[in-house]
């Protein structure tokens, strides 16, 4: 395998990281959208 371990590790990390982050960002990002729209929906007087 020589120096191919680097690419094997990187590929494994990429697939694992991407799968995990997609699920995590999907939940947290949805909450971010809700908060953002809630803040933008407030009239200027209501904003702190």
């Amino acid at each position: 395998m020589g120096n191919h371990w680097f690419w094997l590790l990187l590929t494994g990390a990429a697939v694992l990281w991407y799968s995990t982050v997609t699920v995590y960002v999907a939940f947290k990002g949805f909450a971010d959208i809700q908060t953002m729209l809630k803040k933008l929906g407030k009239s200027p007087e209501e904003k702190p």
Partner: protein
Amino acid sequence: MNQFSWWIDGSIVGVYLLGTMIAGLMVRKYVGKVEHFIVAGREMNVYLGIASLAATEFGIVTCMYTAQNGVRYGFAGATPGILMAAAMFLVGVTGFCVKPLRDSGVMTIPELFERRFGPRIRWLAGVVIVLGGLLNMGVFLRVGGEFLVQVAGINPDKLEITMTILLVAVAVYTILGGMLSVLVTDFLQFIVMSIGLIAVTMLILVKIGWKTLVDTVSTHHGAGGFNPFIHPELGWPFVLFNALLNLAAVLTWQTTIQRLLAAKDTRTGRKVYTGTAFFFVCRFLIPGIWGIAALATLGSTAIGGDTLHAMPRFLSTFAPVGLMGILVAAMLAADMSTDSSYMLTWGSVIYNDIMAPFRKKPWSEKKGLFWNRSIIAIIGLFLLIFGLWYELKGDLWAYLGVTGTIYLASMSTLLVACCYWKRANNWGAAGAIIAGAAIPALFLVLEQLPTTKELAKAIGPYYSGIAAYAAAALAMVIGSLLKPRGPRLSTKEAVNG
């Protein structure tokens, strides 16, 4: 034989398109001000920022070139992704340039330059950014269309009309909802795109296998397929050029910066950078693996010189029904998120910086929104005419590299000097813009002229690119030192106006 089923895969794509349009149009009611339209009222939080940045920076065109790198250079072709991830992580952690930029409260980079270098430099920077950006983006639509034609088996005669309908759909929600629509649709597109990318990669790893991929790279590229420094076509100039290019892109690429400026505060903006950093490894490595899989399956003889279309050709027969629908929806998501963000971002520079001299008095929010929307519509029209109906001649990669460097070399130099060098001034800034644009443009001319073609080939795109960054930096230093000293301001005072 092509695996795309119009009933099953077509339905998956249809549901995705419908969902995106509804989401994009629903948020338009929140847009009441220009600030909402351009930077989403600066209310974007970390995870939405990560989804949006990742979706924007991955289009079909990205997938095509990174896969082509896999075919042509093996794993070594993914090196730019590693360099970009490193640059993004370091910039996010240290706040290098991005902290003073976000702290300044500007909506675009040229707006910051005005505070330090004056209105003329702001205008000139705006022109260079838009020229480089729009010319770069001009070819996205056609390359995206070619991918879909290959993978989904669409009749090539219908390419123009299919991509026109898609662009009109993207333009409609971008024009109405601006950055808010872009962020919300980017979020959906990130999820769809990620599912498709992960699913296809897993299938390749299971069905083709890691050993076959490694053996294919070894057979076709030898040790250079795993190490860019010893690849005969790459070497240290490739690594150095990509390090400079990616650092400059992280600091000044308008779509990336727009996420930083839309973040609710500087800390959030920096977190978006560190959180998205590793995505750029995936951005190069995952399609790179698709490219290597294409080489393993089709073989170099069948691919011939057309390395760009090897990956879609491979996928058209590899992905089974169902997954094919997810793949096409994922690639449409990648393309739509890129197109909408790019239209918005270049539009915002045209409005905010190039049109600044025409706004002697502040415009009403209504007038500002009208102009922003009109500019995006015009950019959409430009994309259609230039990118779809006009067939580009010559090498596409060289074209993208040159247009990108024209903008990135000078803008990154200006930004670093603006934030950290007290002596920097408008003479140096003008010199950097001219030098940064002149060298890549000259290289392109040398490449086209029959008498100088061989000279351009001997120099190569990497040395020419490195020279552009060096010349922009040198011009900034020499120009700034030549100008007599004015009133002394700290860099912080100058940046914050």
